[in-house]
């Protein structure tokens, strides 16, 4: 059984009088432990797909299951608890809370668990260590570089040990060097810690590091072998 099962999903948005059909019967499986890159032109529905998996949005029709649980059927409050437990989300624009230190930002997801202060402290330290920012714990986001901010966001996404990491163009605002650092980090999280990673990206380097590349085109899936993806550069 695949970790993420998307079955015959329809999703449309209403914008004024116009209806935008993003997905019309999408079916897709993503296995546990995989590193999947979602590619495709802008507007093809990549972010929408990520939001559906995270339970941030609901399909118009069809089901989304993660780890056997029907995400598309849950209530808002069930979703909040489920997301806290199973999803680590990383945004293109980092989205750290500016008034909290790196440490406090990373600790946020743990405030939703029953862990004691001491256990939280240990976990945050480990997460910051993994992303190589142990010495930046007390820095505020504005005191960090873009790459450091994004690595802090990744620490925040992994600290509660989620089932799936979802990343929406995580290197979109980073320079080449920082992008490489972030991608290497993701690869390590996947290989060393067997994290399941789904990353939306335009970056061919990112696709190279992924184990599987999915192309979305106008809401349809074009599965291409890795070699082709690399050749497309």
């Amino acid at each position, binding site marked *: 059984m695949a970790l993420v099962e998307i079955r015959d999903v329809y999703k449309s948005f209403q914008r004024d009088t116009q209806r935008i059909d993003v997905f019309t019967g999408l079916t897709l499986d993503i296995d546990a432990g995989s590193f999947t890159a979602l590619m495709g032109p802008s507007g093809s529905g990549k972010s929408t797909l990520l939001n559906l998996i995270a339970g*941030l*949005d609901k399909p118009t029709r069809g089901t989304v299951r993660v780890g056997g649980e029907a995400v598309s059927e849950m209530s808002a409050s069930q979703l*909040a608890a489920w997301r806290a437990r199973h999803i680590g989300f990383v945004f293109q624009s980092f989205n750290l809370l500016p008034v909290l230190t790196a440490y406090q930002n990373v600790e*946020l997801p743990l405030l939703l668990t029953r862990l004691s202060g001491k256990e939280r402290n240990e976990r945050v330290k480990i997460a910051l260590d993994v992303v190589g920012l142990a010495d930046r714990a007390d820095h505020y986001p504005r005191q960090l570089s873009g790459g450091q901010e994004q690595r802090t966001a990744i620490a925040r996404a992994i600290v509660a040990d989620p089932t799936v990491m979802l990343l929406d163009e995580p290197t979109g605002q980073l320079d080449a060097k920082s992008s490489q650092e972030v991608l290497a980090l993701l690869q390590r999280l996947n290989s060393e810690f067997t994290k399941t990673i789904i990353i939306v990206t335009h970056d061919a380097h990112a696709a190279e590091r992924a184990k599987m590349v999915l192309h979305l085109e106008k809401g349809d899936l074009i599965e291409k072998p890795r070699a082709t993806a690399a050749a497309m550069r």
Partner: protein
Amino acid sequence: MIPIVYNVRSVVRRPVSTALTALGVGLVVAVFIGMLALANGFRAALAKTGSNTNALVLRKGADSELSSGLGRDVASIIAADPHVATGADNRPLVSPEVYVLIPLAKAFDTTQIANVVVRGVSDQAWQVRSNVKITAGQRPTSGRPEVCVGSRLTKRFPHTGVGQTLHFAGRDWTVTCQFSAAGSAFESEIWGENEQFMPVFRGDVFQSITFRLKDPATFDDAQRALQADKRLTVDVHRESEFYAQQSQLLGNILSFLAIMITGIMAVGAVFGAINTMYAAIASRAPEIGVLLTLGFRPWTVLVSFLAESAFIAVIGGVLGGLFSLPLNGIVTSTTNWSSFSEIAFSFRVTPALLLVGLIFAVVMGVVGGFFPALRAARLQVVQALR
């Protein structure tokens, strides 16, 4: 729960809007505390006037000393009553009193006339009223046109210093002393000998008779005995209750006004808070989106922003309390509507009042923060993050 440090730091990050909102709340709280301090001071002045151990006798049906009248015979019957305490010299502690209002021009603006109480007392009165203390000079000598002036009058009316001469009721009166009375309404009175005032004012009647009870617990007995006495047509009040009663009308009106006026002002302050919070939430929509994405529930977002609004209001409440503190002790005066006399009293800002002010501030904050916080809690994650 979303950590409160998130809200505190967010508030500190926008000092100008925070300060303005807090200032609005603070102003309302200051006015609120100030007006209640006024009502408080007024009540306290009258409450302290009466003593628990004294009984006040008025003509039956009279609701104030002004409308009462009692003959000399009543005074002697009461002096002989067994409930009345006796002094060291074995004489009963009774003060049959003359009570009149005289118009006096104020010191700073002599065109302003105030009604001042003139009280003619027996020489026992100084013992009956244990809160009255002479602060300067000597008590008026029996048989002479001399008066003693309450300490609240001396600054506000001319010719009230010891050795000066007051002119009223067609005669000159030498001021021989000043007295204090623990901040009570007596401090706004002029005292002299009852036998001196009787002929120049209303003739051979007293307005009230106050006596010290042998045992404060026997008040009910004394009241029953005197009111049942066929020779008398009197009402007997416990002195403390009588004055507390007198403060009720004006005290309640002052409190009502305080709540009315600050209620209206509070609407303004609440709108200030609403504005600030809507602006804060609009500019932090992505942050709210992140919190919701991480799995914080919408109601914790609601609580978080309510707390933020309440926090700003608490700053305002503290400011308001600080603004109101200098009022404490300032002397002002009003006409007591129960006796039509001028009473001076001080603003009383008490710790309890400061606490009420702070709670009032928090209420304004929570009310003002509610709808903005509700909007924050209802944000759609995907929209908020765009």
